[in-house]
């Protein structure tokens, strides 16, 4: 399970990978330093053994269950969090080799748009100050006039007007704040943008404008994106590759056409099934999607971490595969006892961490 795993994505262009994440794990709260020394606390395994590569000029999307560790992974990539183990390499520089000052220098090239746009803007700074700060920090456009021109240009790109520059964050609507956060990230012309739910607060029209802007920047400047989103239609539209996260791990990753078009992991399959559903929810008949509730990252299930909710493990047990009885019903033994390795898909363009990824079951969705 800990064997270094390389995504067979673009084997020939490997040298042009600007972001390389290798077996990265991050645990929270393993020990707490209090006044009275170290105190043991439950460990949250937020990110566990994640690896992926992003070639220059491409877009990698991360999707997954809420609380599965996507934002933590984003913070690891930009160096806001240090990994418990593993290594992140950005443009051939290993982040672990950088000290705080080195990281600060690197941040001009790698910008992060945080998930909550309201909270990530200083309430006491106007939009203008917020954008100017980004330029000041990296000593860009030192000339007043040039600075103002750059800011005016960027604020227009995200669909805001100059009138918004004098406002404070609380005087903006949610979507306007989100666009300010995006403007702050692109104003200093980064090479890599990590966007955590960048368009969730935008109406579809403005959303389209922002996505078109990102695509345009990508085409002109060969920007690289890592996008976290819940919108699978958006993933299909803009991403080249995608990683599906469940309880801190990538359960399926690879080419976006493969993963979204023909998902092989049961979790990805259920995501796609719901996303495709457009009929109104029946008010009089409670419907469940996935059986059971999300396990706690404080106590990750044994074997395959998805086994507590996996419809396939259940179906296999019913179909006569060697099975055991658990609190969650009768499940395939392998699922409960052994952690699955990544199984490459037939074309080799994606992998799924499921013992039975290649088992085509007649009826998955029921």
């Amino acid at each position, binding site marked *: 399970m800990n064997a270094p795993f390389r995504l067979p994505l673009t084997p020939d262009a490997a040298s042009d990978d600007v972001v390389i994440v290798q077996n990265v794990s991050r645990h929270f709260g393993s020990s707490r*330093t209090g*006044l009275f020394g170290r105190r043991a606390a439950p460990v949250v395994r937020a990110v566990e053994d994640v690896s992926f590569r992003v070639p220059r000029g491409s877009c990698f999307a991360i999707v*997954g*269950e*809420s*609380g*599965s*560790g996507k934002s933590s992974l984003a913070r690891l990539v930009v160096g*806001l969090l240090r990994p418990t183990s593993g290594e992140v390499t950005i443009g051939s520089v290993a982040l672990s080799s950088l000290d*705080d000052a080195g990281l*600060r220098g*690197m*941040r*001009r090239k790698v*910008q992060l748009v945080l*998930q*909550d746009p*309201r*909270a*990530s*803007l*200083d309430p006491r*700074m*106007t939009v203008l100050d917020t954008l100017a*700060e980004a330029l000041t*920090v990296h000593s860009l456009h030192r000339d007043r006039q040039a600075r103002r021109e750059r800011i005016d240009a960027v604020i227009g790109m995200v669909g805001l007007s*100059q*009138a918004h520059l*004098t406002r404070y964050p609380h005087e*903006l609507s*949610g*979507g*306007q704040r989100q666009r300010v*956060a995006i403007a702050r990230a692109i104003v200093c012309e980064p090479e890599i943008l990590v966007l955590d*739910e960048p368009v969730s607060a*935008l109406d*579809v*029209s*403005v*959303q*389209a404008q922002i996505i*078109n802007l990102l*695509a345009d920047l990508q085409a002109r400047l060969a920007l690289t994106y890592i996008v976290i989103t*819940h*919108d699978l*239609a*958006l993933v*299909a*539209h803009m991403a080249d590759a995608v990683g599906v996260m469940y309880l801190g791990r990538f359960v399926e990753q690879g080419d976006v056409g493969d993963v979204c078009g023909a998902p092989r992991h049961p979790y990805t399959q*259920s*995501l796609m099934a*719901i996303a495709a559903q457009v009929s*109104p*929810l029946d008010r*009089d008949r409670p419907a*469940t999607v*996935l059986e059971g*509730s*999300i*396990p706690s990252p404080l106590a990750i299930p044994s074997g395959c971490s998805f086994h507590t909710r996996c419809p396939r493990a259940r179906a296999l047990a019913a179909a006569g595969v060697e099975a055991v009885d658990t609190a969650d019903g009768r499940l395939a033994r392998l699922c409960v006892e052994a952690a699955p390795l990544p199984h490459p898909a037939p074309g080799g363009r994606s992998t799924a961490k499921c013992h039975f990824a290649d088992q085509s079951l007649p009826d998955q969705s029921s």
Partner: protein
Amino acid sequence: MSLAQDMAAVPERAESTTAKPNPAWTLLRRILVQPKGAVGLTLVVLYLVLAVIGPALAPQDAFRQNFAQTLRPPSAAHWFGTDQLGRDVFSRILIGARATLGIGVGGVTVAFLIGVPLGILAAWRRGWIEAVLMRAIDVMLSFPDIVFALAVVAILGANTQNVIIAVGVVSIPVFARTARAVTLSVLAEPYIEGSVALGASPARVIMRHVLPNISGTLLTLSTLLFASTLLSASGLGFLGLGTQPPFPEWGTMLGDSRSYIRSHPYLATFPGLFLAVSALAFNLLGDALRTIYDPTSRRAARRLPMLNFLRRRTAASAPPAAGLAAAPAGPDAPVVAVEGLHLAFRTGEGLLEVVRGVDLTICAGRTLAIVGESGSGKSTLLRAIGTLANPQEVAITAGTVAIGGEPALGLPAAAVRDLRRRKIGIVFQDAASALNPVLTVGAQLAEAVRAGSRLGPQAVRQRCIALLRDVNIADPERRLEMYPHQFSGGMKQRIVIAIALAQNPELLLADEPTSALDVTIQQQILVLLREIQRKRGMAILLVTHDLNLVARFADDVAVMYAGRLVESGAIATVLEQPLHPYTQALRASAPGAGEGRGQPLRSIPGEPPLVGQLPSGCAFRPRCPRSANRAECAAQEPPERMVASRQVACVFAEEALS
């Protein structure tokens, strides 16, 4: 002050860069428009003047002792009487102003300059530095103030400068402690992480983000400590270690008068009065400055809504408007009925109207979804319906809101609280900022559960756990003890939903409640809400951008553009055959709505509307493909009318039918 006049003042909000007034004058003007600022500034200036020219003003020799005239009450010759050595108290107060100011301001400055950096350092570095500093401070605080001051003066020698240092040292622990506490809570805010992610250095983060955000608290603390510093100085004086005897200083004078407090109370009265007034003056001025530099309170402070306040009072006591009286009360009454609602923000430049005449009703057990342009006023509308529009910030310029058949606007504060608690649950748009970063999630949930109920602590805990389980947060027992920053974005959002549901509301106002949730959990939350709707008939007002979600979950939909509902009706009607060009454009913009991978998505061309500068006639006109400069569109704001079983505000709505 009519609405029309206010609106006339709106237009140019942007370019104030052309002729910049002198910042010092601007500041002065902004201090003086606040009553507290005007009073505080006047007193402080008087005080400063006194410190400079006080000695020249003194009518008598403040040092001449006259044993024939000791302890005289105030008279024409000695306005404030004489002291135990026969010196003129009035002259001594005038002369003492300078030393008093020096010790008070100097002492607070010393304490501030040492204590605040220590506190910030402790909060920033945590670890052993914090432990050591906080222990040292605890030790210092366990001694009486005077002991420390004495020690310092004893070591350094008694003169005015050392007295300043001594009284300053006494206040260091208070500053350090407060600075640490407020810094910790500011550091927990995500915007700090935001600027770190930007690449800002620690020094910059502290100077630009931490200090401004803690300055308000520290300023207030400084003015409070001003008086107490003078009192410690007088304690030193009393022990003969303060400013050296013949030189007067108010604190010392007050200290000296202690022995005569029963027989000659006026001796304490005047120095005490001057001391108290000077402390008050700094306090008022500090408060005024804080109001100016705190952007969240600034706009409100500029136009003190005295008149509005009175107006609101009379409005509350007036009989309910006709439209409202007609609304049927009783079991069939809609849970929410909004009529002709207009909302405007009070800004420095006048009223900025963001909601311009909205009518809507939601019946029990139904869900109304509001979709629309970002910045079109959805959240503002939702907050007003939830009786949470801050009257200092938002003016309700027209219209009515009724909740459960009762008018909800203009109620007295207690009634509003009661209404909110019993009937309304709200999920705000930015979940993370709706939670308090320094309280555990358990504490915040428990507060919501307890409000207005008499549950024992065990029952409250059980209910909290059940609520967290409802919104699908694993391991709720352990999660209760965690702080908001230890949760993921979607978890925070679910916690806010749990808090909103804690009181079993009749009406749930949900602003983008699932924007951070993946489809599986979103589905589970929707199923939960459906359950509650089915069991208790809860009405839901849902603001969202996700048309897919609207299609799956809502019964009715209202599309908002530039503060008005441009199209509303049942979802099947509106989403399947939109008639308003804006609704049609929304349908066409969604990713997956036809454009292939890698192709640009279709967004609505043209500038989004800017509130306060809307075009004449139909607000959508400049971007409308259907209008093509037809005169009808510019003539007037198109009224809402019924076309093909939905309300739509477009003159040419019928054209979409063919």
